[in-house]
């Protein structure tokens, strides 16, 4: 297999995706070193999920390329994909399987030893507090329970790169705390994490570096303190709002309130 001689666990070179006339992602270039947690932020429709889909081989880019651990995801998909774990934005699961069956399927797709897979699956479900549901069909599960199974499925093969798209979605506060700590711990062991989220407090606490995307283009890239200094703002929330807000937020809130209460135009 050919490895591309690039540094960084994740490398995007002019990554571009167009849907007809609409360019969802435009010339995104990034180098993410091993062990870094990168927060990938942007308003709705900025192109975050499209970027993740291209980086994980779910969408073919219309331009540029994504390289995972030295392997071009389009040219060497099997090599690249065997190194990544993904928690997608929409919790796609085969819900007519049980968690045990689903995790066993995932483990076999990565050629894990059966005993090791069963042990890991059992441990994950136990730690997530859903061991008693391990043999129940997932079509009755809550959103949070499904998210726990999805996260387990992303980690079971011990990937070196993780793509997480709103991973805390639906999780209770305790599990969210555990996951945040887990991500820090995994990064300290050299795993690279690409973290998409709208929850800026979490990104501020978890990520080493932040990239902000707007209308398909990178508009900011740096560690959180750098971005705060650059924009003269006190928090990541303020930085984000300053860079991406379509207008005066107070004005938007006032207009909304008037619309909800029916006092607009009075």
């Amino acid at each position, binding site marked *: 297999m050919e490895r591309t001689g690039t540094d960084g666990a994740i490398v995007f070179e002019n990554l571009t995706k167009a849907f007809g006339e609409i360019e969802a992602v435009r010339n995104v270039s990034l180098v993410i070193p091993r062990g870094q947690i990168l927060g990938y932020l942007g308003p709705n429709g900025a192109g975050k999920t499209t970027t993740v889909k291209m980086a994980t081989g779910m969408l073919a880019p219309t331009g540029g390329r994504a390289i995972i651990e030295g392997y071009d995801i389009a040219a060497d998909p099997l090599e690249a994909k065997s190194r990544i774990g993904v928690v997608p934005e929409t919790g796609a699961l085969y819900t007519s399987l049980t968690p045990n069956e689903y995790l066993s399927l995932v483990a*076999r797709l990565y050629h894990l030893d059966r005993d090791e897979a069963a042990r890991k699956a059992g441990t994950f479900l136990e730690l997530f507090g859903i061991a008693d549901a391990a043999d129940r069909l997932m079509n009755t599960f809550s959103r949070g329970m499904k998210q726990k199974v999805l996260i387990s499925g992303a980690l079971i093969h011990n990937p070196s790169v993780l*793509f997480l798209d709103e991973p805390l979605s639906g999780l209770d506060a305790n599990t969210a705390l555990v996951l945040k700590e887990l991500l820090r711990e995994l990064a300290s062991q050299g795993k690279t994490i690409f973290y998409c989220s709208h929850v800026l407090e979490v990104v501020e606490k978890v990520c080493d570096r932040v990239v902000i995307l707007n209308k398909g283009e990178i508009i900011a890239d740096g560690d959180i303190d750098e971005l705060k200094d650059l924009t003269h703002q006190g928090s990541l929330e303020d930085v984000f709002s300053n860079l991406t807000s379509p207008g005066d937020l107070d004005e938007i809130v006032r207009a909304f309130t008037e619309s909800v209460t029916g006092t607009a135009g009075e």
Partner: protein
Amino acid sequence: MRPRSPGPGTARGEGTFDREQFKALLIASIKLDLRSSRLSHGRRSKFPPLVAAFITYIVMGTLLAVALVSTADPFLFSLLTLSAAMFMTALLVIMEYSSVVVHPDDFDVLAHRPVSSRTYFWTKIANLAFYVTATSFSLSIPAAVVGGITFDPGVGFGAIYLVVALVACQTTAALVVLIYSVALRVFNYEKFTRAITYVHSLSTLVIVLGYVLLPRVLAEDVTVLSLDRGPWVYGAPPAWFAGAIELATSAGGGGQTAILTLLAAGSAVALIGGAMNTISLDYSRRIAELATTSAKAAEVAGAPRRSFARLGIALCRTDEERAGFELMRRYMTRDRKLRARIYPAYGLPAAVYIYGLITGGLGDPFVRRQIEGNALPAQQLLGFYSVLITLFFATALSQSDQWQASWIFYAAPTRSRAAIVTGARKLIIWRYLAPFYAVLFVLLAFVMPPAKAALYVLMVFLLAMTAFALLSMASAYLPLSQALEKTRQARQIGLVMLLGVAMGLMAAVLEILKVIPAAGFVVFPVLAVLAILAEIALRARLRRRLAGEEFAG
């Protein structure tokens, strides 16, 4: 300029086959097939849907085999039972194409995992083979048993029949897969996604004509359950496989039987081989994308026409009815999967109309005349299929892959959930059924006096309204509130095809009017009253059923 990234089919490693992944994926696929995807109103159904469907098919196969056992000709027996099994198989694969050939969740679950196109493709082929084998086995086992009892060489006939029937049904499924994949390759993808529903209708038309109707046109006299084997047998695929059974059971037929067997073997090899070269994970992505309403698709679909919005305001008496009307209006315009489940229905009457033109069987329906040389009376068959299309609407109306969005009906302070269904049904009747019958009238006016055509279509319309109400009773759920489930729709259709009540009623009405034309003054009001009573009964059932129903998500 940087070269464009290679597609999934050209990437390194995509041609490799991974036995362990194949086994894991196949086992998971079969488990998914055999399990219900959701609870129904808090209760698990007694049988898994696939098992319930198989039981239905066995009952259908038994009725057909028993009905045809009176023929003394094993070739004719094989031809007619194989026609039915192959037709049903094709219809099942067409109707539930996106869930039978590729699972809707495959792309999201598997596309980011290291599964090669070849491994995925073999998994899907094996899964499709399992599904079609199980289906065709259920459809064919009764004929094999009855044939084994009736014809020489006894058990040998039954065994050979079963093997050939399984191959015939696999070949049929492969034909459908091939039609789709060729369409996907010939047209560009955007055009294909827009045309997919019409491809469904066209497939139904081709299958009905090829497997059910044309053999009847070409046969000399099937009405008395015997036939003269002219050159027509070479153009009818079920006859090829019937020939193979004849050859294998040494029942005679000579050179013609050998040629038919060669045609059967050749078509099986060519079609199954061809189809096996078409499915890949990339293909799954394309099918999955058919369901997504992207900005592009919405732009292509355009806004639903305002005239129908105004119609909704005029037809619907309450806000709940208007909500149901609007919901269906927008989904029927934009949800390709929903349309893809319904539009095959239009292929059925279209096929019979063509058949009627070929045979000249669509003359004045209210005058007695001799049917010449073919078995199926086109007027009755056209009426039956024109009523049958309501079944497709009745079963598809309640299903969606976005069924969980129906929580809103339970959360909102609605005075009557039944009214939401009523509104949705009004949209179907006035936007889709009434125009269909208007077109039917225009088409029939070419082949019969316009006044007769109007009376005929009125009769069919009234019967269709009765059928639509009665069939909706079996599927009395809120619009788009049930999960899409393999065989759900096919199972419901299978059950109703057993009844044939509409066919019987239509034949009776036509016979009465032929003998006593003045009876029309009584018959039409009676049919109208029947339709009204069915509607009243449906609304009562909907009120009872939906009042205490809880959201199952």
